[in-house]
């Protein structure tokens, strides 16, 4: 058997986690689950290396027609710079979160037989979203990701988690329904569903379709005003699940928004660009202000996700290669930092048994030293300060805004950065306080944070810091296959 070529890898990175998920149902033990996850990581990692090498080498996207049928008859898989950015992010976050879960799950009574298949199915679905080029396919895999994520939220049990999961399910299903309605309109009018080949012109029916699809995706992405399900779901879930929900699952829906508005109906963007950008702005401010008001650590982080997703929508009004690079960099660095932050928050909860901020006064140090580093480093990236990928992203977006003479967007970016610093330093200050007895010094608290949990959080945080220093090759990779509307070849 010969080594698979890059385009076959496109298929394998989807099917390897799928097969692993099936295998995890057949062999439900903890040991088997762990090995299946490692195997999935190794194989998909190899595939991503091969794909990246090919992409950087050729300088253009890789495609693969399933079964040899060309579009619009068959289904095409597709990977460009954006796809690879998201695939790599998925790989790193899933690997680190799996490592964390190895120690977290047994300590918190999470049922392995249930967890592992859902976890791997979610991985499969995410990879599939990022290589799909077809409106209906994407619907299917996005649904799989949701249907795997919802039970993962509720997996730890408890009334609050169940309520949060059900609310999440409700929003996701409604979103899916509305999305499907839009897709049906497109199919009825054009008779094909490949995102790249459709040439949609501004007409009332298609505007409606674009609006429906966008609304559906916004519900899934928790973009303001359809964000209310996210904070409870992301804060009630077990730590590794929170990490992948905030870093990856919601971002899959935003990813699709980017794809559709730049590939499928770029002609409709005039006007819509400002609406989308405006919603992003509202999310950035609203999410940050609410994050500032929370009294529980995980809810601060969850509202921070609401705010940070808003940045990604700024690409529409700014529409330039710089903005595109900035947004992709932001998606990746936010993913790493946010996942690192959630894992670190999980470590604190592991020791304290709660995540009330007031109960955390002065816990920096001791068994939590590494966790604190992870928390602080992630925070630096989230507020867009150097040295971090978040900083590079903010710089690129700011430069894009000033080059376009868009003072308003530039001011928004700067203000949002300050707000992020405000809600994150509020947390860090509480951890540094020393006005009460150290909660960890209480008699009988000889617990420690397992190595896997401390280092997985730190690895992600370091990753988001190191991104800044790998900016040169990364931005080159991210720009491959960037849409015409961003590079200025056509469009507004």
């Amino acid at each position, binding site marked *: 058997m010969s080594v698979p070529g890059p385009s076959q890898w496109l298929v394998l990175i989807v099917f390897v986690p799928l097969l692993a998920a099936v295998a995890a149902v057949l062999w439900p033990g903890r040991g088997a689950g762990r090995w299946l996850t490692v195997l999935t990581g190794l194989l998909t990692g190899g595939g991503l290396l091969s794909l990246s090498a090919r992409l950087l080498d050729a300088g253009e996207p890789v495609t693969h027609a399933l079964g040899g049928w060309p579009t619009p008859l068959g289904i095409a898989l597709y990977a460009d710079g954006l796809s690879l950015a998201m695939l790599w992010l998925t790989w790193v976050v899933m690997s680190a979160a799996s490592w964390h879960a190895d120690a977290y799950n047994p300590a918190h009574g999470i049922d392995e037989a249930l967890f592992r298949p859902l976890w791997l199915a979610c991985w499969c679905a995410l990879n599939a979203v990022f290589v799909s080029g077809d409106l209906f396919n994407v619907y299917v895999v996005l649904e799989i990701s949701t249907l795997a994520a919802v039970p993962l939220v509720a997996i730890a049990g408890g009334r609050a988690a169940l309520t949060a999961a059900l609310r999440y399910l409700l929003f996701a299903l409604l979103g899916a329904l509305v999305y499907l309605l839009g897709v049906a309109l497109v199919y009825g009018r054009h008779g094909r569903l490949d995102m790249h080949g459709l040439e949609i012109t501004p007409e009332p029916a298609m505007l409606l379709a674009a609006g429906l699809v966008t609304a559906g995706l916004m519900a899934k992405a928790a973009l303001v005003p359809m964000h209310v399900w996210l904070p409870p779901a992301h804060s009630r879930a077990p730590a590794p699940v929170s990490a992948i929900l905030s870093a990856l699952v919601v971002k899959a829906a935003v990813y699709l928004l980017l794809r559709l508005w730049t590939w499928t109906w770029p002609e409709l963007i005039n006007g819509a660009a400002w609406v989308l950008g405006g919603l992003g702005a509202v999310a950035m401010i609203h999410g940050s202000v609410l994050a500032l008001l929370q009294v529980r650590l995980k809810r601060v982080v969850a509202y921070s996700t609401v705010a940070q997703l808003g940045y990604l929508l700024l690409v529409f009004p700014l529409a330039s290669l*710089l903005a595109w*690079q900035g947004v992709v960099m932001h998606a990746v660095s936010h993913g790493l930092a946010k996942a690192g932050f959630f894992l670190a928050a999980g470590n604190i909860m592991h020791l304290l048994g709660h995540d009330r901020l007031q109960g955390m006064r*002065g816990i*920096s*140090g001791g068994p939590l*030293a590494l966790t604190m*580093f992870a928390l602080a480093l992630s925070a*630096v990236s989230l507020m867009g*300060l*150097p*040295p971090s990928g978040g*900083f*590079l992203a903010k*710089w*690129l977006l*700011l*430069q894009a805004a*000033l*080059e376009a003479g868009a003072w308003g967007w*530039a001011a928004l970016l*700067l203000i949002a*950065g*300050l707000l992020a*610093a405000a809600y994150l*330093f509020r947390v*860090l*200050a509480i951890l*540094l*306080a*020393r*006005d009460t007895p150290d909660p960890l010094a209480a008699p009988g608290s000889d617990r420690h944070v397992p190595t896997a949990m401390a280092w997985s959080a730190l690895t992600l945080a370091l990753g988001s810091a190191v991104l*800044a*220093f790998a*900016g*040169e*090759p*990364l*931005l*080159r990779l991210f720009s491959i296959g960037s849409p015409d509307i961003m590079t200025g070849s056509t469009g507004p």
Partner: protein
Amino acid sequence: MTGFTLPAAMPLYTMATSLVAAVLIFALGETRGRARTVVNVAAAVVKLLFVFAMLVAVWQGQEFEVRLPMGAGLELLLIADALSLLFITLSALLWLLTTVYAIGYLEGAPQRARFFGFFSLCVAATMGIASAGNLFTFFIFYELLTLATYPLVAHRGTADALRGARVYLAYTLAGGVALLAGIVWLEVLGVDTTFTPGGQLDDHDVGPALRGAYWLLIAGIGVKAAMVPLHGWLPIAMVAPAPVSALLHAVAVVKAGAFGIVRVVLDVYGSERAGAEGLLLPLAVLAAITIIWGSVRALAQRDIKKRLAYSTVSQVSYITLGIALGGPVAAVGGLVHLVHQGLMKITLFFCAGNWAETLEIKRIDQLNGVGRRMPLTTAAFTIGALGMIGMPPVAGFISKWYLGLGALQAGAPWAVAVLVASTLLNAAYFLPVLARAWFAPPPEHWHERFDGLRAETLLALLIPTLLVAAAALAVGVFAALGASPLAWAEFIIREEYLP
């Protein structure tokens, strides 16, 4: 060129000494105190050796440069030119002494690993600021310095400490935003922001855009340089432990601000061009207002550290004033004050720390007769205070002499009046302190905590204090020698004005 050639990446290696020290200190943890001390001191000594080697090499004409492309045309650029080395030498020298002092000061205190880890990180960031070769690099380390100093200001963890740290952060992060906006704006306008003697404006028209970017940069950097009205954080951040105050005031933070203003004026906009476009006069006026205002506020303080803080507000603006007056002589005065103020102010803070640690003296009215109980510390304080007033032969006199000459040469006699007024005010807030310390009758009995020590206080506190005081005196007395800060400042200005 005779002798030796150093690797071009020396600035990076020099910064690495502090970075590696920071990582090691964090990794060693709280309990391994002896190993931590070894790492601390060894790193500071190695760094100092590197810096001296670079000084010699730069004097002989070698150039240092390290580049790392960051994508989208951005570049991390570290250099070591004469101006960098002025700041690097000061911070490396004072880092060693402050480290020794801090080890003594924090003996037995909790969370020392965290303290010294961030302390080293702070020095690494300062080193980055000093050796930044363009505004992008400068900004990265400028923000890093904010982040690394925050846990130091908050170190004690009390409500006061956290409040001080919060105010500090609010000011500096807001300043960072202005700075970032200014830098990106300059890039968008097509100005090369690599530091070059004579500036980078070339044939750019100085319109509202370039002026706007200039004032954004000055406002952003002015926060750390504590220019009125952006100085509010400095007195409040006084809650930090004494070595941190020394670091903030003499080695790192306010110096980073003053140094940034020097870079922007001399190496981005260019002194002549900025002067011709009328960008310098308002800056000089702001500096003059800060000098007077800081001194007036210092008079009103009863707390020793607060009085010193306002004195810093005033003194750091001498540097800005020297640069903003726009002639070579005034610029020499400003640059040399970067070093002189550092030496004198760190002496004063060390002394304040010694008094507080040994006799729990915090307020000026508690200083009566302290000269009898702690004569060496009080003598050191006297040297620092007289230097601040500008009394020859202490370092401060040299600075004021050059600033005054420079003001006349630049046709700004009003600046001489500002200097005279400031000198009178300095005397008004320092001389009564000295009189009290030496001549007032001491209280019945001092706090007895350190009785039984052979010296007047711990040697780890006393020796650095005496060394910096001696240095503050020596750079003044030997200013005419070839190896003095003054000679080095003249060397820099020759390059800037006669490139």
